[in-house]
């Protein structure tokens, strides 16, 4: 237990410079982008010189880069994420409204792609070269080659427009006033298609990784030993081969947590889900620095936590890692 705590503490300490780099990087990037939040705002309706000057003053955009950075960091040290000019609300309020949607969608997508991907990978890798393996390989390559927005639109046309099995978009039915279990089921129904379009591509990746790991494992000495002991092929596949093949897949899991956020920008747009991905996109187009920083800080935190979890899982799966840790 103390070892796990030590790993966790070390990881969290390492993450402090990461957060600092994210803050400085986002600030500098948006500073380098042409146009500011007032320019972005003026596209609806325009305005005259006096009004534009008043807005820049109100939004603190007339101050120097360093002054704005300093003010932001001071506020951040007090755990204040600042004010979103695009939404005219506190950044934290905007973020926490959207975070649950993204978390739900991502958790479901990761669970789905990880569990289904590894199981199918075991199925494919149990007998390499078999018909089952070939079919699974072909399908997974096809899925992996598909862009997620196209897959999303195709799922939408097929299952929501033509078959009408699932709702078209949104996170829940509008104005039905559902509560409790009925609401949870409603949200789950709305999440099926977006989770599929986010998760299917990673499912293919996990399947391929798992299959390769399995094929390698079959050549190992310990498998021959297990065979010689007279274990059933099923037991060998699950207890011996799969367990070792799982390690690269777990590595991928940590990476997916980060990449999902960028994938969710398009999926959230297609399925009209108010989540963090779309929020990041809106923050950039509105040049809303505090909001974009808020999104990046939260997602950095999410990636750090996901990787911590993966590290701990590693330690559990591979005794060699634990011994070094």
């Amino acid at each position, binding site marked *: 237990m103390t070892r796990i705590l030590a790993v966790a503490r070390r990881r969290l300490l390492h993450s402090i410079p990461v957060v600092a780099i994210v803050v400085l990087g986002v600030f500098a990037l948006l500073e380098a982008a042409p146009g500011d939040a007032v*320019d972005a705002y003026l596209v*609806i309706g325009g305005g*005259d*010189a006096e009004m534009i000057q008043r807005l820049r003053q109100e939004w603190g955009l007339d101050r120097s880069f360093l002054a704005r950075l300093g003010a932001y960091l001071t506020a951040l040290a007090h755990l204040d994420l600042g004010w979103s000019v695009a939404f005219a609300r506190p950044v934290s309020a905007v973020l926490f409204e959207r975070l649950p949607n993204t978390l739900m969608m991502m958790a479901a997508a990761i669970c789905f792609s990880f569990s289904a991907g590894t199981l199918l990978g075991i199925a494919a890798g149990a007998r390499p070269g078999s018909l089952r393996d070939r079919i699974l390989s072909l399908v997974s390559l096809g899925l992996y080659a598909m862009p997620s927005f196209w897959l999303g639109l195709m799922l939408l046309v097929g299952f929501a427009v033509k078959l009408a099995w699932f709702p*078209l978009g949104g996170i829940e039915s509008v104005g039905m006033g559902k509560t409790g279990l009925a609401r949870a089921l409603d949200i789950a129904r709305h999440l099926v298609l977006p989770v599929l379009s986010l998760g299917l591509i990673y499912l293919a990746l996990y399947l391929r990784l798992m299959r390769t790991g399995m094929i390698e494992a079959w050549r190992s000495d310990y498998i021959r030993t297990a065979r010689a002991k007279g274990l059933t092929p099923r037991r060998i596949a699950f207890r011996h081969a799969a367990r070792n093949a799982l390690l690269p897949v777990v590595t991928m899991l940590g990476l997916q947590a980060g990449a999902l956020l960028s994938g969710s920008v398009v999926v959230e747009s297609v399925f009209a889900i108010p989540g963090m991905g779309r929020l990041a996109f809106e923050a950039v187009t509105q040049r809303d620095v505090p909001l974009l920083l808020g999104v990046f800080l939260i997602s950095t935190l999410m990636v750090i936590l996901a990787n911590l979890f993966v590290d701990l899982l590693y330690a559990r799966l591979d005794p060699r890692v634990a011994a070094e840790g």
Partner: protein
Amino acid sequence: MKLGSSRRGFLAGSLGVGGAAAVSRFGWAQGAARQGGTLVVAADSEPRNLNPAIIASNGVFYVASKVIEPLAEQSYDGDGLAPRLATAWSGAADGKSVRFTLRQGVTWHDGKPFTSADVAFSALDVWRKLQNLGRVVFKDLEAVETPDASTAIFRFAKPTPAQLIQNALPSLTAVLPKHLYEGTDINANPANTRLVGTGPFRFVEHRPGQFYRLERNAAYWDAGKPHLDAIVYRVLPDPGAVAAAIEANEIQLAAFSAVPLADLARIGKVPGVVVVTKGYEGITYQLTVEINHRRKELADMRVRRAIAHAIDRKFVIDTIFLGYAKPAAGPVPAFDTRFYTPDVATPGFSTRDAERLLDEAGYRRGGDGMRFRLRLLPAPFFEQTRQFGDYLRQALRAVGIDAEVVRNDTPGHLKAVYTDHNFDLAVGSPVYRNDPAISTTILYQSGLPAGVPFANQYGYADAEVDALIAKAAATIDGAERARVYRDFQKRVGEQQPIIHVAEFSFISVARDRLRNVANNPRWTTSNWADTWLAS
């Protein structure tokens, strides 16, 4: 100006392809309207401030016009206006006052009575001081007298044409409840996002990223209206998803060209779906080439006319707009017959004339076949402004001008063109708002400070144009004022300080059970009191 930076589609002027068929399928002569039903429509943007008295823009009006009403609305009939909160208006002969008779027996959604005090407050404290368009039109408004609860007399410090004020009524005169705004910071008032008005629908809920919900105002002054129980605006940012939603009957209207042009032919064939090109004439956009007159080549009128000669308007309309647009002759769209004149020397398509003018101006083709180089910045506002940028580059190459296309997103484009003036040519899409003085003369008038978008940041200064603009601003007689604006069009048609290429507006895709669609020239931004859903 436009609905949101994510706007990818846009649409056509009057009846375009398929429009005629759509009209007959709608049948405007309606039977008895059915009461009830919830109308679900697509929305693609959620303005940070939903108050139409402060921000006069289509994205705001789309939702807010059902809740907060103007003094009058545009109409296809009569003199072009239908009364709303005002029932009559007349300007004094000296142009220094306009008298409004207001509707009686109107109440705000919170039950308080609507009176002339609300109009006076809105005009003096909001339109004149805070509104993007009102700060120009109402700049000389000095006082509003309220002799009784249903009369408001606007007094102007300088003669102001009553015609201008009348033309400003639909877009610029949303009336706010004085009792909620007086003595507060108007820009930060909570009622800017939770609207309170006199309109046919009450504002009920906004869930960010998901929907707006408006419900029927049972105490609406127009007895028996509205017909709908509720309107829900579903936020659908993806155009493909909007098309799917209307096909699946989850929404009954996709306005503002939310369905891309290329998809219209297909979706128009889906049973129960119609494509409507009417109902946007009051918000006609123009595809323009903006010119930086600080470049010495472009300061020469012959070069500007040569560029205009190089553009094949028919190709632009057929290929880029897929037929959903009309050629533009000048700064006033043909729909506005009060001001429009076709008698303008707009250069037609002729590469030979273009080359001749360029040679005359002294810019002969060099060794590489090019005369000079330009930086061309297409605005990212519409898919068509971007595509036209690519077309213009090729069209200019054909006459020996090498244009380099520079792409920016919306804030980047605004800064480059309107603040830094870091461009030679730009592609723009100004909207015409019912009177040249509201939306158009500002694009030609000289002496404006840098940083003001959608205004003359082009370095163009012509004494005659400035004089015509000033003359029209002080001309009280409507017919005489229109004549001055026709002279103005002739002058800029000859000078080509901005090249007008096409007129276009939006297209709606609707389910055919939605009735009374597009029955006024700014229908999507009007109050929908008479809109109903057939069963």
